[in-house]
């Protein structure tokens, strides 16, 4: 019984939980609820989406990532609990995975199970979690039913997933369970069967709500394909400061459009040549589709591609973040006119919405259809959009923390290439040569709103995510990293002697 005692202590220590599965994506840990801006996918005062109750997604060991647009999601891997409980170097009793194990193993199994489920309820009930992904084998019908009942007691919706494909990965372990594995056909449960990595979906749907449906839609749109996504900014415009004016490209902006286009095309050709040099087959390049917004300067930047015969699509959802009342105001003026708003903004720059403006969360919600279409797209994709839009799309693909979204930097002299990997995406930065350094920094186009201090000097990826957001390399022509913040610092002590 000593083992079990230690196991209890171990399982109770939160640090044993997998980092990637316990990380709370920042948004939901904001100290004040202050001015939460609700909309369709908004966190509410409780930190939950108000359209939905709580959902437990129960699944068979798929390493899923909870990146559903700022919905508070956490994955609970039963396996992690097992490993934590048994501890490093400790060994799992041989019969642990067998259906008819010895009593001591059964006790250990149930203990681990109980701990994991208690954590799920605790998280859903006390930490305002909304989507819990319970990642375990859940092989028997009776087990799933009792799980559903248990969740129901806690007022949790129950969505079941059965990705057979993923299950195959666990085949060695599964073998022992296969005799008791019953395929899902319990009519009264909500469940999704996903067969052969999304080729076929089977929904048994009793009471799916908004969020469940979004998850379903999302799942039908994901596909695993190695196509690249490029992000670039549009050229500079004649009237940089104005959102409403929607100005056309300046002369410099037109030059940028040409150089950027050349660089993209050259880069793609080089990659292809490199592939062939490495002994790869001489396959033609995947077609490149260009998406821009309906803002004048992005359309004009895309024109160069259009003239070369590339497919260019305008997407009205990709317009830059709306600055609302902050339009044309200096930071000083904003601080003077809306001191309360500035205070709220500093507490939660991701959610806070200035009067008539959009928050980054508003923008993310608006971009949701784009994200789904992006998941579906088969061609290589070049996205020409305002920095605010690139921040959100990049953060989605690279799994960045939402708290860092307002700080991500996309200097104009770089093309960001995102290459999908099996578990996480990879990003590459391609330098655009010969640009006037004046046109490079992102700040003039930004809403002049102060970004609060944080310890993050370069946008940090999720712990365990392992990949970095674009960091500004220390080359001579690069602007200082935190332009906006420096300005905020400079103004901070002068606010008192404001007229």
């Amino acid at each position, binding site marked *: 019984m000593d083992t079990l005692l230690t196991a209890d202590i171990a399982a109770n220590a939160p640090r044993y939980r997998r980092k990637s599965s316990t990380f709370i994506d920042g948004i939901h840990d904001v100290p004040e609820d202050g001015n939460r*801006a609700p909309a*369709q996918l908004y966190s509410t005062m409780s930190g939950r989406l108000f359209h939905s109750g709580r959902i437990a997604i129960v699944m068979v060991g798929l390493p899923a990532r909870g990146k559903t647009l700022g919905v508070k999601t956490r994955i609970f891997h039963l396996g992690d609990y097992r490993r934590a409980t048994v501890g490093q170097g400790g060994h799992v009793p041989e019969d642990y995975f067998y259906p008819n194990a010895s009593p001591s193993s059964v006790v250990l199994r149930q203990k681990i199970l109980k701990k994991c489920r208690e954590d799920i309820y605790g998280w859903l009930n006390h930490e305002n979690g909304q989507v819990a992904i319970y990642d375990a084998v859940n092989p028997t019908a009776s087990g799933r039913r009792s799980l559903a009942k248990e969740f129901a007691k806690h007022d949790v919706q129950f969505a079941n997933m059965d990705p057979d494909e993923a299950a195959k990965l666990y085949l060695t372990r599964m073998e022992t369970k296969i005799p008791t594995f019953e395929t899902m056909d319990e009519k009264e449960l909500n469940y999704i069967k996903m067969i052969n990595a999304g080729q076929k*979906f089977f929904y048994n749907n009793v009471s799916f709500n908004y969020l469940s449906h979004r998850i379903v839609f999302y799942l039908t749109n994901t596909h695993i394909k190695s196509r690249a996504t490029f992000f670039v900014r549009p050229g500079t415009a004649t009237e940089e400061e104005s959102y409403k004016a*929607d100005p056309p490209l300046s002369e410099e902006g037109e030059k940028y459009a040409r150089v950027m286009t050349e660089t993209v095309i050259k880069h793609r050709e080089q990659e292809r040549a490199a592939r062939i040099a490495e002994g790869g087959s001489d396959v033609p390049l995947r077609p490149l589709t260009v998406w821009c917004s309906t803002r004048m300067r992005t359309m004009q930047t895309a024109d160069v591609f259009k003239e070369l015969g590339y497919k260019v699509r305008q997407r009205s959802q990709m317009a830059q973040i709306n600055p609302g009342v902050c339009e044309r105001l200096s930071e000083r003026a904003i601080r003077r006119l809306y001191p309360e708003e500035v205070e709220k903004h500093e507490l939660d720059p991701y959610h806070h919405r200035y009067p008539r403006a959009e928050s980054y969360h508003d923008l993310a919600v608006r971009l949701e259809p784009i994200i789904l279409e992006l998941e579906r797209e*088969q*061609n290589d994709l070049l996205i020409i959009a305002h920095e605010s839009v690139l921040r959100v799309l990049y953060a989605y693909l690279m799994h960045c923390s939402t708290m860092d979204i307002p700080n991500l930097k996309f200097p104009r002299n770089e093309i960001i290439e995102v290459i999908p990997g099996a578990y996480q995406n990879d990003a590459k930065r391609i330098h655009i040569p010969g640009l006037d350094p004046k046109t490079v920094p992102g700040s003039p186009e930004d809403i002049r709103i102060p970004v609060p201090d944080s310890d993050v000097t370069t946008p940090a990826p999720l712990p365990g995510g392992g990949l970095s957001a674009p960091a500004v390399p220390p080359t001579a022509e690069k602007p200082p990293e935190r332009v906006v913040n420096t300005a905020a610092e400079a103004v901070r002590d002068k606010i008192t002697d404001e007229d």
Partner: protein
Amino acid sequence: MAPGTNGRVVQVEDTKICVVMVGLPARGKSYIAQKAQRYLQWLSIDAKTFNVGNYRRHDAPQPPAEFFDTSNADGERRRRVAAEAAINDMLGWFRQGGVIGILDATNSTKERRKWVYDLCTKEGIEVLFVESKCDNEELIMANIRDVKTTSPDYKGQDPEKAALDFRNRIKNYEKVYKSIDADGDENEYTYLKIMNVGAQVIINRIQDYLQSRVVYYLMNLHIRPRSVWLSRHGESLYNLYGRIGGDADLSPRGHQYAKKLPELVRQSVGDDRPLTVWTSTLKRTIQTARFLPENYNQLQWKALDELDAGVCDGMTYQEIKDVYPEDFVARDEDKYNYRYRGGESYRDVVIRLEPIIMELERSEDILIVTHQAILRCIYAYFMKKDQSRSPWMNVPLHCLIKLTPRAYGTDEERYQADIPAVSTWRGKGSTAKHEDPIPESNLGYTPTAAVH
């Protein structure tokens, strides 16, 4: 680089999809077909339904049940001719640029499905089979009584007899009916199978984004009875001055409307069941909804905010005409497509409202308190109004509209609050602050059901 190296494989705009309905009669296929067509057209995606029954009726206007017996060679031949005519017309329509064609017929045998599949695939058209399967006898009989006995096939006949004949007609189809992929040998097809109105759904091999959108939309449909209530915000201070956009407070009369709204809603709902209330994030809609009962769940949607007038925000129409004379004219020429400088067009608004429509289809009783342009778009979706006319529609202030979707079409009722308000309707070319709407601007609505 030569454009050729860009390659041209799959482009979303090049996608052509034939949605092939599958299922026995009285399974709601035509309902699904017309909903999907309406939704796609509202999104400006060119969609058209080809109903084989309509083609067959040219040839055999009121056939008895025996006509549909598969052993009736003549009936069989004539039905085949009708199907061929429908498909030929559809393929011709695709060649002229059609995007989503919906083939509304039973397509109940494997042979028929393969025939349609081969014809479409040969022309580069993707095929999406949508099967509605239902074994709930109650649902089927309700559908027969509601819809089929009023069908042109039974015009002027005794409804009871008609229902019986129709039941027999279905029996003839049942003899040969094979649910899609029931034998596992149609696994290569892209299909959506909806069983008992959504109790179970199977999705197989969805290929692209457009298909997944159609599928997602169809999955959200339900046939439970419900209504949608629409109201503009109460009269605002900007309404009084004839200014557009902004984030103004309500006028005193606007506040009166807000106070009266709970009573108006209760009267229209008829009982005490609570509604879910959706407002925009602007002050005037939130103020309008603030006296509604506490057990009404209230949600704010950014997507319900008024059309963004960009640089013209906060101006009167006279000011717009003075400062941007060309824009003023351009907007009146094509109000649906005109995008304000730095702002939005009606077309942009429809795109941002799509998630709202999705959510509305899924939901039951909803009260939406929003703005003139937004209401015009939502109204156009339910009432099938044309893009060229809906931006000119008169949506009076201080009036509650109740829409009740039915199998074919939507019922409308209006409730007047009897609190005076300015008119914000504007005729083409006009710069008047407040103008009386012309009768045509009601888009065919006659206020007979209005309750005072």
